[in-house]
């Protein structure tokens, strides 16, 4: 007897992905397209040079409302939510008392007493349990509204002109990490100038039952099917795009065993904003200096590093690869890894144990890819 397979969760676009030929995989309990027929490399390159469309409706959304919303968010997250203005978003993290990471997230401020936290799909339930367990006397209402929303990411140098055809919102006026509420193709939506690709682009939140209409209209507006038109992109391209931009992926670069400082996320640790979970541990680690650090590397010999492979310095194992992959735009094999702080310097030669074969690599500056502005 085999146990019945767990029912995978589906975004509102599940049938659409199948119709477009998406290859579906189990991603943290979600049935998601890893790639479409164009293939990961083409999806990646098209996003860098023209535009790509991603279904990220599996991401979770948690509303925090009430007079103590800022104080509550500032207690459970590491960045300083009091610095946000209406219509602004902030990268932040839920931290444990050890300064390690429950999840990374975006904090959206709609008004002084209304915020939305956008969290990772696979951690939404854990985050919800964590956040609600810290609600004591604060005057806040918490609501897990993940199922209400679809979220589509339009990314790439042509994202703005593609989305602009569908909305009267003046997109050019929306600054990076800011958002506006308005209509896209007549559908009430939140349009946020954010993304996970290292490109300019937007993330559009709307009612879940409007996902198909939005998806189709964005593909039409982006000339899907033309040689340089928009392409729907799967999780594999999303991963290689974010890796070239050296953005952390929860469960790889960051988790409950890595602190924010080790992960070079000190810039979202506002130790002077007042008390928050993990502040003490992070302040102590900042004083002492973290013993290990996340670095980017590129292979200098033939071979591709993969997640979890050992990293060696002078023949001794010193760390592990958190993400390793070919970088389709840079045409290099790159990765990120934790190494002792004394080795965490650009130019440091390392080796990666690629299934028993030691392959030379070198620590390099991150991000690997930076778009021209």
């Amino acid at each position, binding site marked *: 007897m085999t146990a019945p397979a767990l029912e995978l969760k589906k975004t509102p676009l599940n049938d659409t992905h199948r119709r477009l030929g998406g290859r579906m995989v189990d991603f943290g309990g979600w049935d998601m397209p*890893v*790639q479409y027929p164009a293939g*990961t490399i083409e999806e990646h390159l098209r996003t860098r040079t023209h535009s790509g469309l991603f279904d990220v409706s599996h991401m979770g959304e948690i509303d925090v409302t009430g007079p103590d919303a800022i104080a509550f968010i500032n207690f459970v997250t590491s960045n300083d939510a009091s610095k946000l203005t209406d219509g602004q978003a902030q990268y932040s993290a839920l931290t444990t008392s050890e300064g390690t990471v429950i999840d990374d997230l975006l904090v959206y401020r709609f008004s002084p007493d209304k915020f939305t936290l956008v969290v990772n799909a696979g951690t939404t339930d854990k985050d919800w349990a964590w956040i609600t367990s810290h609600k004591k006397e604060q005057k806040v209402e918490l609501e897990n509204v993940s199922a209400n929303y679809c979220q589509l990411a339009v990314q790439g140098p042509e994202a703005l002109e593609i989305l602009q055809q569908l909305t009267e919102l003046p997109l050019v006026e929306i600054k990076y990490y800011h958002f506006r509420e308005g209509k896209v193709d007549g559908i009430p939506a939140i349009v946020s100038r954010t993304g996970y690709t290292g490109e300019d682009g937007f993330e559009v939140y709307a009612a879940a039952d409007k996902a198909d209409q939005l998806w189709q209209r964005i593909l039409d507006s982006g000339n899907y099917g033309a040689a340089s038109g928009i392409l729907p992109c799967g999780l594999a391209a999303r991963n*290689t795009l974010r890796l070239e931009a050296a953005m952390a992926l929860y469960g790889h670069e960051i988790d409950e065993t890595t602190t924010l400082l080790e992960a070079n996320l000190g810039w979202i640790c506002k130790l002077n904003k007042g008390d928050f979970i993990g502040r003490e541990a992070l302040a102590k680690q900042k004083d002492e200096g973290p013993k290990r650090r996340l670095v980017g590397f590129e292979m200098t010999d033939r071979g591709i590093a993969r997640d979890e492979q050992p990293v060696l310095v002078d023949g001794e194992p010193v760390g592990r690869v958190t993400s390793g992959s*070919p970088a*389709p735009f840079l045409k290099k094999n790159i990765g990120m890894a934790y190494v002792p702080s004394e080795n965490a310097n650009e130019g440091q030669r390392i080796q990666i144990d690629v299934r028993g074969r030691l392959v030379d690599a070198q620590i390099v500056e991150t991000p690997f890819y930076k778009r021209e502005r």
Partner: protein
Amino acid sequence: MANVPEDLHYSKDHEWVRVEGDVAVIGITDYAQNSLGDVVYVELPKPGDEFAANESFGSVESVKAVSEVFSPVSGEVVAVNDAFNDEPEKVNADPYGAGWMIRVRMSNPGEVDSLLTAAEYEDFTKAETE
């Protein structure tokens, strides 16, 4: 539908074998290259290396994954395709032609008889995708 040429022999690990006298030409099937996606790296043995049937002789990597490749027959490698250093995508573009991987001088040519025919392999991949 994946292309499955009639005149080849197939393994359940998705390699094909073309018999040329006592030499077996080995590669991966159209079904395999399609499942892998864009191939970006191929690691192959050197001429002179010997493999037993079903032993791993190298690996094929896509952006996302690494797959070992297995020799369907026993013998000594007499040639390897050195085109993959520059053009690993040949595995995707022409899996039964320019995408061949190694030529093996068979030590036991009878092993070929235990491989799948084209029709059997087609049924096998159908069952696997269902």
